């Protein structure tokens, strides 16, 4: 009997030990898995850090080269500064080229930003495309395009210039054939003046909802506005602005009418009339509201 019990107990003990060992082995595996994961993570981060360091180093070298280039012009002779910037001679050449590349990109973009004509060759050199940019009070507005045929005579074959801009007249009476830049400058004047007048009208409608636009034409050279004059009677005044010079953004004539004729000839309104002649419309209206002339 004793022996049988000893056998069973012994067996149970062995099973218990096996179970413990198994659990230990599993814990070991899990731990190892975790370690591998952590290690992998570590390696990835190390790689990322090294990559970042290399990028920063390369970028800094490029910036130094670019600054040198900006200061001195293209260094055709290898001078000390260039030598100090990079280690391998192969890479020095490449670095110089990269710096020049960014410099040219910046200069070309700058030409575009300052309102340049962005001349582009088309049809294998048989034509050119030019862009005329417009802007008003710092806001870039529409861009218009022309495609010019470079035959024995220059000829505009395509464009998106609105019909009320006198393109035809400028072409036939102007100097497109002899001085294309002067021609483009004149056209640009018309387009920018139009864009400016249009923008003033747009801003007026947006900012001054109390002012009614009774009439306006496509070229924005005639504008009829209705003001409400503050007071018990809430009189109305009709203001007509004429822009006879289409290359200008300010009116050449301002006419103010009202049933209250005394008001119209008052010194305040004489001032308003002068203001409207010298100041952009939306800005003039701000002043007129402030002084209480209009509602």
């Amino acid at each position, binding site marked *: 009997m004793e022996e049988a019990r000893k056998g069973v107990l012994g067996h149970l003990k062995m099973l218990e*030990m*096996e179970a413990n060992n198994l659990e*230990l082995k599993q814990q070991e595996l899990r*731990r190892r898995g*975790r*370690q591998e994961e*952590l290690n992998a*993570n*570590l390696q990835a*981060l190390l790689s990322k*850090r090294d990559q*970042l*360091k*290399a*990028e*920063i180093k390369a*970028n*800094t070298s490029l*910036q130094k080269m*670019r*600054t040198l280039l*900006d200061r001195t012009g293209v260094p055709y002779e290898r001078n000390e500064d260039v030598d100090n910037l990079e280690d391998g001679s*192969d*890479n020095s*050449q*490449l*670095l110089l*080229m*990269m710096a*020049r*590349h*960014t410099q*040219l*990109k*910046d*200069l*070309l*973009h700058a*030409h575009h*930003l*300052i*309102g*340049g004509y962005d*001349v582009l060759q088309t049809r294998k050199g048989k034509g050119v495309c*030019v862009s005329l940019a417009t*802007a*008003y009070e*710092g*806001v*870039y507005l529409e861009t218009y395009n022309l495609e010019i045929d470079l035959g024995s005579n220059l000829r505009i074959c395509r464009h998106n210039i609105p019909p009320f801009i006198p393109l035809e007249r400028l072409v036939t009476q102007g100097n497109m054939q002899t001085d*294309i*830049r*002067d021609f*483009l*400058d004149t056209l640009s*004047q018309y387009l*920018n003046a139009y864009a400016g007048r249009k923008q003033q009208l747009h801003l007026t409608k947006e900012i001054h909802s109390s002012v009614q636009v009774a009439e306006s034409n496509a070229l924005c050279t005639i504008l009829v506005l209705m003001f409400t004059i503050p007071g018990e009677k809430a009189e109305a005044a009709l203001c007509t602005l004429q822009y006879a010079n289409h*290359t*200008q953004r*300010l009116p050449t004539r301002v006419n103010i009418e009202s049933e209250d004729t005394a008001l119209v000839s008052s010194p305040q309104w004489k001032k308003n009339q002068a203001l409207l002649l010298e100041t952009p419309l939306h800005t003039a209206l701000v002043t007129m509201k402030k002084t209480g002339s209009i509602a």
Partner: protein
Amino acid sequence: MMTKLLSLTDLSKRTRMKKNLENVYEAQIKALQEEIAALQGQQDKNEREIAMNLAGGRMQDALLIMTGHQEKEMGKSQRDITAHLKTEIMEMEEDLIRQTKINGIVLVNCCVKTVEKGNKKMVQQHRLTGHCSFLDFQVEFELTDVQEDTTLVRTITDLNIVMDSTEFKDFSNFVSGVEDKRDLLLFFRTLRRFSDRCEDRRRTFQHFQEKYPCVVSLPGGCRAEVMQIKSPKLAGCALTIYWSIEVTNEGDITPKIDLLTKMPEKVLEMDSRKVIENAPDSFQSLLRILGAEASIDTVIQSMAA
């Protein structure tokens, strides 16, 4: 069955060692993450300080070489990449010549700094130096790009212009006005036309000085507004041509040419028909009929005779 028996102390020792190793890994990972964050911050700061356009396949390839990538992993040789980059550079240089010619503006330097960069908004400062014929300029402007629905709204939010030519008072007034209204495009349009008119004046003045060296003098140089005509025979008699180029705030350019006379008292007394007194007005009429060059020629010849 024989299984390896671990004593309790062995077990806990191993466990502690492994835990330590894990802790070490985790500490290293944390340190690296912090280092990476700092490096990314540094990279961002560097890229804003001097903003460079590195877009495009060629530049990206070149960058890979610069950061140590090998030809094998890129599938392209360094020689090819260099050659392609060179071609692009040449094309851009030709393009720059074309733009310079049609715009009449020479841009020498352009530096860009990123002030703000967000999902839908970017603000950059541009510093340009260059010249339009003999007029040097340094222009700084801040450009704000905002992505609104389908369109990009671009605005100039600050403008600063520095020019050497302070002797042209009218142009200085125009420049101040244009800065206030941030009208970058108007500035360059007007600068070009103004320099063209200055060129007309310089060419005309120089032409006359060469043609009549004994009579004509340019006291302020050929770029100044004044041309003096002195008769070699009649002492004290001088005519002055004032050629000013007026610029309004709206960028309208008007050359104005005036004639002024300086005659000794005796000559004025003899001028019964008031020819000298009326000379400035007569000159204006002459200008309207004959134009600048012919009118000035006429006046010079009358003095030289």
